[in-house]
């Protein structure tokens, strides 16, 4: 079968527990601040409608192509899954309640399950059938006491397995523990009394031996967490951080922890006047984006190097040699993707976003200088072979947009950092594509030997599908597509764990 034509072939009978689309297609009733009983959603953005709060599952998804016999395990993903209640619709993608997905690859086939994280917020709002607490990008009036940021915690950004639990993570507060087998919510994770309700970012970095690094920023403070593979807090530090309104991700090299801090301010007056935190963020194009380098062995050893203003959400990796650190991330101009493009998505409008490009930072610790280079591809959500975290990696995997007109990510791409060569596959107008993660082939220890798996949305069928690519040959198209008999809200991030 021609892999490239997968999405054009007509589907055969679907297996599994298909929910009627009528149940899933929650019609948007009102956008925050916009009277829009019928938002005219572009068909490529259906997943942005969100669910009503219902969980969903499918025991056996339809597989097109062949799932490799050595691809067995659970692929966990997390993203905002609910955007409206009681006629009120969030204006920002980041605001929705966390819906954790598990795609389980076994000898019996592939199953799918998605469950809402039972946060304090979700439970209270589900009962009230209205939004009760302010959200990141929507100025919801608080109708219940806000004692800590965990009262607004949506647990909606990423999911990782640590020890015997899954952690559903959000940027502004604690991680929420879930049962890996059932996705049942166990509760908030507190690492130490003085760290209760402290931010635990959604982008931990996990080294090949399981060493787990994370951070949080809040109110001018930064906290660093050093956690063992078993999930015990080994060390932590809290210190004053350079002022910035948002720090989403970071990188670790062999000996350092690296942050890139964009010049984002927060206009607290407009927050007090009822604006959301996201809406109150300001961009100071004349201020520097700061590189903060912290010694992994001694958190008090920190240095800052400045460069011209630019924005970053996601990092691929970092590694160092002879006191020179190399960091890769995805760079954009300013906050426009977050503050202009994402609200359009939430209204169902397909629009070209400001581009986000691969960026490569060279930090010379001897000279105290940085150099930034980049490529012109439109990408996001960079991932690497998990065995290469904090080591010299050769490949970076990104979803990419095949053209500015595509209105979003519609393909996957591997970049060879050494040669600059790329290997890529595009679904064209047929599908949109989410983050893809690299799964090493069991028994192999060569970087890049394995599978690239992820999730996409078939625009014509209005269904979500999983993908399996040969990591060494993306251009050949997916080895397998795993088709769900329904669509699920788009996710942000996740991880695969071999059985």
């Amino acid at each position, binding site marked *: 079968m021609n892999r490239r034509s997968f999405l054009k072939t007509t589907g055969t009978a679907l297996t599994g527990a298909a929910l009627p689309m009528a149940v899933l297609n929650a019609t948007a009733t009102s956008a925050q601040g916009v009277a829009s009983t019928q938002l005219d959603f572009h068909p490529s953005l259906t997943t942005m409608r969100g669910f009503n709060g219902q969980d969903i599952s499918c025991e056996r998804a339809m597989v097109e192509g062949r799932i490799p016999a050595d691809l067995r395990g659970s692929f966990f993903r997390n993203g905002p899954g609910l955007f409206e209640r009681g006629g009120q619709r969030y204006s920002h993608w980041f605001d929705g309640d966390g819906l954790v997905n598990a795609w389980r690859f076994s000898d019996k086939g592939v199953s799918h399950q998605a469950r809402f994280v039972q946060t304090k917020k979700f439970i209270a709002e589900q009962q009230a059938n209205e939004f009760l607490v302010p959200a990141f990008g929507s100025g919801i009036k608080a109708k*219940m*006491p806000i004692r*800590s940021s965990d009262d607004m915690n949506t647990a909606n950004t990423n999911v990782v397995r640590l020890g015997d639990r899954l952690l559903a993570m959000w940027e502004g507060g604690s991680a929420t523990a879930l049962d890996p087998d059932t996705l049942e919510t166990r509760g908030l994770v507190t690492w130490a009394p003085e760290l209760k*309700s402290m931010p635990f970012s959604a982008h931990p970095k996990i080294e090949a031996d399981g060493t787990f690094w994370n951070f949080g920023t*809040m*109110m001018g*403070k930064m906290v660093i967490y050093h956690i063992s593979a078993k999930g015990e807090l080994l060390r932590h530090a809290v210190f004053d951080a350079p002022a910035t309104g948002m720090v989403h991700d970071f990188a670790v090299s062999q000996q350092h922890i690296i942050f890139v801090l964009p010049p984002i301010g927060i206009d607290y007056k407009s927050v007090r006047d009822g604006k959301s*935190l996201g809406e109150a963020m300001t961009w100071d194009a004349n201020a520097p984006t700061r590189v903060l380098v912290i010694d992994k062995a001694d958190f008090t050893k920190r240095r800052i190097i400045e460069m011209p203003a630019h924005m970053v959400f996601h990092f691929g990796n970092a590694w160092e040699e002879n006191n020179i650190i190399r960091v890769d991330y995805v760079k954009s101009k300013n906050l426009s993707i977050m503050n202009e493009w994402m609200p359009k998505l939430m209204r169902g409008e397909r629009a070209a976003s400001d581009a986000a490009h691969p960026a490569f930072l060279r930090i010379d610790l001897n000279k105290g200088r940085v150099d930034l280079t980049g490529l012109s591809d439109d990408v996001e959500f960079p991932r690497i072979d998990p065995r290469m975290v904090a080591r010299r990696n050769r490949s970076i995997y990104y979803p990419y947009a095949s053209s500015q007109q595509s209105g979003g990510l519609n393909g996957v791409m591997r970049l060879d950092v050494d040669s600059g060569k790329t290997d890529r596959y595009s679904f064209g107008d047929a599908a949109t594509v989410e983050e893809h993660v690299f799964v090493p082939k069991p028994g192999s220890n060569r970087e890049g030997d394995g599978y690239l798996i992820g999730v996409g949305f078939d625009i014509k069928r209005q269904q979500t599908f999983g993908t399996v690519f040969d990591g060494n040959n993306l251009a050949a198209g997916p080895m397998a597509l795993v088709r769900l008999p329904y669509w699920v809200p788009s996710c942000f991030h996740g991880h695969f764990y071999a059985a």
Partner: protein
Amino acid sequence: MTPPRYAKITNAAVLAFGLSAIGASPAFAANLTVEVSGEVGDKGAVMVALYKASDKWMGKATDSRKTAAVKAGVAVTFNDLAEGEYAISLFIDENSNNKLDSNAVGMPIEPYAFSNDASGSFGPPSFDKAKFVLGKDDKKHVITIK
């Protein structure tokens, strides 16, 4: 949402309980009973601070009470109070260290509440939101820990 507001709750609590009770004893006085219900728990003590309108709200309290936390709820009484506007700030000192503990950014990590079950956003509510009037008669005011 400005940083100092967290600190304010903590400092107020510490200040309030650093004081000995200074009972007012005007000619016409009423007793105020504060009932604390909800998720009181059975660890440590419930620390109740009483403010009158002329006090600096969340600063130095007029009077305070401390009583062991009991799951079913607790009640404390302030006697012989003059007529006027009052407000209550309370917290549960779960680890019995006589202060409202906070995390590394100064956010309280022990339960707290205010009269009228008033709440602020990332900080205490205003005195106006928490105030109630005490007349010539004895009064009971219920606060729920959520």
